[in-house]
């Protein structure tokens, strides 16, 4: 309808559903076909997805990128999501061939230093989504000098774990934890990590984590004693995804230790755990 000047880019692009299947209990994996001008996302970045022309459900929903492939026709993105409300329930009912509005990739990605010896991934529930893409990226790009990767993957129950066998092949060690003792370590994902934390050197280890607030908070507590740098991908409700609505606030420590709010969509979604302030 209206054309953009050359130095600008179209915010909303069209995504076509390739597949949308139940991946595990209450979780879906959606694969979307993207046009060629969709930029390749960096691990940790997110996209905003919206059902077309809906006034009743007005806002797009933010999702971490959990997979991406570039091909001759454009790109294909994978979104792993949990049914959390009305919006995600409607997404779960989409069939292949249907079209959606997509914007992105948005936000600040994980930053993996080049000379890292160990990378620890920690996920709780659907928090595995961005780590899955991070893991895939590390396999393809840095095979020569890749760090050791230990993945601590937690879920409420074994049925909610996303294909552990596929994950196991991508890392050096996979430790599974379930709250209800149906698989792996019985209990919180931070417990087995805490036991071996001191075997990692804080100078050449990085933790990348994504999961529910309780898990992130527990991580911040166990890292007080043994301060391994930790990057966390956070989630918050958003309206715009580009920093205008100020809806997705997270409390962080300012330069002088004061409490201030940053935007998950712009300063995040990946933050340094040490900067996060808790209630």
């Amino acid at each position, binding site marked *: 309808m209206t054309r*953009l000047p050359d130095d600008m880019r179209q915010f909303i692009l069209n995504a076509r559903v390739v597949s949308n299947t139940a991946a595990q209990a209450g979780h879906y994996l959606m694969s979307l076909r993207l046009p060629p001008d969709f930029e390749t996302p960096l691990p940790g970045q997110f996209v905003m997805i919206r059902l077309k022309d809906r*006034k*009743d459900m007005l*806002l797009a929903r933010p999702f971490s990128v959990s997979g991406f492939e570039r091909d001759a026709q454009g790109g294909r993105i994978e979104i792993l999501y949990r049914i959390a409300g009305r919006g995600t329930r409607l997404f779960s009912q989409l069939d292949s061939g249907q079209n959606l509005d997509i914007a992105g990739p948005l936000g600040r990605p994980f930053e993996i230093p080049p000379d890292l010896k160990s990378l620890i991934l920690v996920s709780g529930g659907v928090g595995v989504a961005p780590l899955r893409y991070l893991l895939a990226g590390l396999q393809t790009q840095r095979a020569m000098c890749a760090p050791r990767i230990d993945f601590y993957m937690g879920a409420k129950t074994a049925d909610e774990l996303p294909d552990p066998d596929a994950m196991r092949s991508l890392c050096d060690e996979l430790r599974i934890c379930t709250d209800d003792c149906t698989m792996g370590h019985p209990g919180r994902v931070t417990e087995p990590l805490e036991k071996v934390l001191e075997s990692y050197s804080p100078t050449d280890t990085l933790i990348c984590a994504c999961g529910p607030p309780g898990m992130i908070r527990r991580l911040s507590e166990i890292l007080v004693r043994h301060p391994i740098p930790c990057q966390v991908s956070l989630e918050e409700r958003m*309206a*715009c995804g580009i920093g205008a*609505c100020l809806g*997705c606030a997270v409390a962080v420590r300012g330069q002088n230790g004061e409490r201030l709010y940053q935007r998950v969509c712009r300063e995040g979604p990946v933050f340094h755990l040490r900067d996060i302030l808790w*209630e």
Partner: protein
Amino acid sequence: MGIAQKNIAPNLTVEIGGLTLKNPVMAASGTFGYGEEYAPYLDLNRLGAIVVKGLSLEPRRGNPPPRIMETPCGMLNAVGLQNIGVQAFIRDKLPFLRRFDLPVVANIYSESLDEFPSVARILSDATGVHALEVNISCPNVKKGGVAFGTDPGMAGEVTRRVKDVTNLPVIVKLTPNVTDIAAIAESVEAAGADALSLINTITGMSVDVERRAPHLKNITGGLSGPAIKPVALRMVWQVVNRVAIPVIGLGGILTAADALEFLIVGARAVQVGTANFVNPMAIPEIVAGIESYLERHEMAHVHELIGSLKTR
């Protein structure tokens, strides 16, 4: 009426209290940041004006999250007027906006009567601010937190105090959370306001029934989006019939058809808010839609449309 030559584009220019806009579609305060967030996605020169995020004398960190919740055909927000403060705006944000052919309206906010003129004075001395929009929906802390905008006397007093210290056009933004918005509008007009904008958000609430807790940390928030459009339109209609100064209509405008409704009812211009969150191109698309409507109805100037409502 009408234009003979179809190849002449209709004139969309409107004037608001001495400020000329190239088209009647402005970006509403709090939905467009300070412009730079949207600059990668649309040409800011195409906006009728930008009303920047509400500014207070000192920076405000805003409310704790969760701050927003989607509701049917709309959303609730309780951002808490987070902003960088008027000085940082002038120093860090205004230079960017000066690069565009774009009227900049500074929205101002205060919880005390004495602070409003201070903020207004600082902005009036800055280069590149073209008008002030006064948010009177905020609570008057000295009067027990009653919003300035809910009392005709207080609303008038704020208007007078701001008018006393500035030569810029003063737009007063009215809250819909009142019994008789036209009475507030008359009081604000009598106090010297150059224009009115309405409506601000409607106070609302949403509850998570599983947790039996409010969705917003602040418990209540401001409802915006298409859900409030009929209310906004009714209030604009009531106000344009009672005041002589220009009225800027806003509340739930998503499409050109929505904007046309407000203009037909009598709004001199409109503001687009929540729609920007959904589609950064909303404003240019609405401008294009108004233009093609005027062409289709053979109107040479948007003035022919404004206030053209036929009630019989």
